[in-house]
């Protein structure tokens, strides 16, 4: 059987990490192709519910990334985001959601190499963890056998 290829969704801000990933490209640094980037104006816009949605729909791992503290294009969007992440991540952990599968990072527009490292590291660790079957099990209602009650 072929090696497990994790599906990884990246939620990134437009001004730092998206631009950073652009730099990875212009610098021709190669990295694992498992990741798909979704572009947000700011980490402050990233709704925690979207992270859960990603797991619902079958993601095995998630990357959330934006501007370093003090570098936010909107001055404080990432500060707000950080506070939410602290609480959200802890709640996930408390409910037993595998927080190893959610990687938070700051990647600036100048850190093309760092972006590649983050992606590769994430892909490697998710490969080791395997598919997120726990969540998939509860998520895909239609596949559950029909039963009483």
């Amino acid at each position, binding site marked *: 059987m072929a090696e497990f290829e994790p599906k990884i969704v990246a939620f990134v801000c437009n001004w730092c990490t998206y631009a950073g990933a652009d730099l990875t490209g212009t610098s021709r640094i190669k990295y694992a192709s498992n990741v798909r980037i979704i572009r947000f104006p700011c980490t402050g816009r990233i709704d*925690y*519910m979207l992270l859960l949605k990603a797991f619902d729909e079958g993601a095995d791992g998630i990357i959330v990334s934006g501007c370093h503290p003090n570098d936010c294009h909107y001055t404080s969007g990432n*500060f707000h985001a950080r506070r939410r992440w602290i*609480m959200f991540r*802890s*709640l996930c*952990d408390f409910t037993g959601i*595998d927080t190893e599968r959610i990687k938070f990072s700051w990647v600036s527009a100048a850190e093309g190499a760092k972006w590649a490292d983050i992606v590769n590291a994430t892909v490697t660790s998710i490969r080791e963890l395997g598919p997120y079957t726990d969540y998939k099990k*509860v998520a895909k209602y239609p596949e559950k056998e029909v039963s009483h009650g």
Partner: protein
Amino acid sequence: MVDLIKRAKELIETSTVKVVIGYEQGTANKTRALFVEKAEDADKLMFDSRCVQNLAAYVTKREVKEKGKMAITATLPVMRSIIQLASEFQVNDNNLLVLGITPESKFIEFGNLVEVETFVHQYTIEIDARNKEMLDKLEKMSPAERWKFWIDELTPCFKCYACRAACPMCYCHRCTVDFNQPQWIPVPSHELGNLEWHIMRAIHLTGRCIDCDACYNACPLSIPLNLLTKKMLEDAKEHFGGYQPSLKGGHLMSTYKPDDKENFIQ
């Protein structure tokens, strides 16, 4: 509660308020909410250790609000809820008067919400020992064990939303679960729908929950869903020095400190 009854009568007779919200003897040794609109009904008012329902849930209920200025019998948790509601512009001195009941079950009246706030701030929000123990127990578990624990606990939930209805902070007219473009949270009560509903609820109450346990007391299935908000309360303490409902606003999750600490962002 003689003085409570006396005061309630005055307030109605002088039509200082239109309705006094309090507790009365209910059926089968339960107590329940009473809405006094006629002075004579004030005699039904009572208070004892069974009166744990958070009456603050009524001050945002349309039919109650529409009666006019309200007075509310408020234990410490209720007072906290009132202050939080005031900080969210849902009540103010013009539409609400607080008839306090101290933790020592003494009647205490407040001239305005500022006085209520001052009183409330004498006490910090502390999680009771039994639940604290439960939290510790859960935190010691492996994520996999916790996952199993919560799936087992939450799966029976049939989404009657009694927890939401009983919570004074859940006064939104359109809850996120009622939002369907897109359908953020599955409507049916199955593992996913239940898990996400309870996570969402806990997040929305983070920094607002004052730990009154109304949600848990209301749950017809006694699901320990209040552990989620209690956990958030503990985290708020650990990460941001905790919070108290405050008329000054400055909500925990809509503000930040540039030096907020975390150890997981690469």
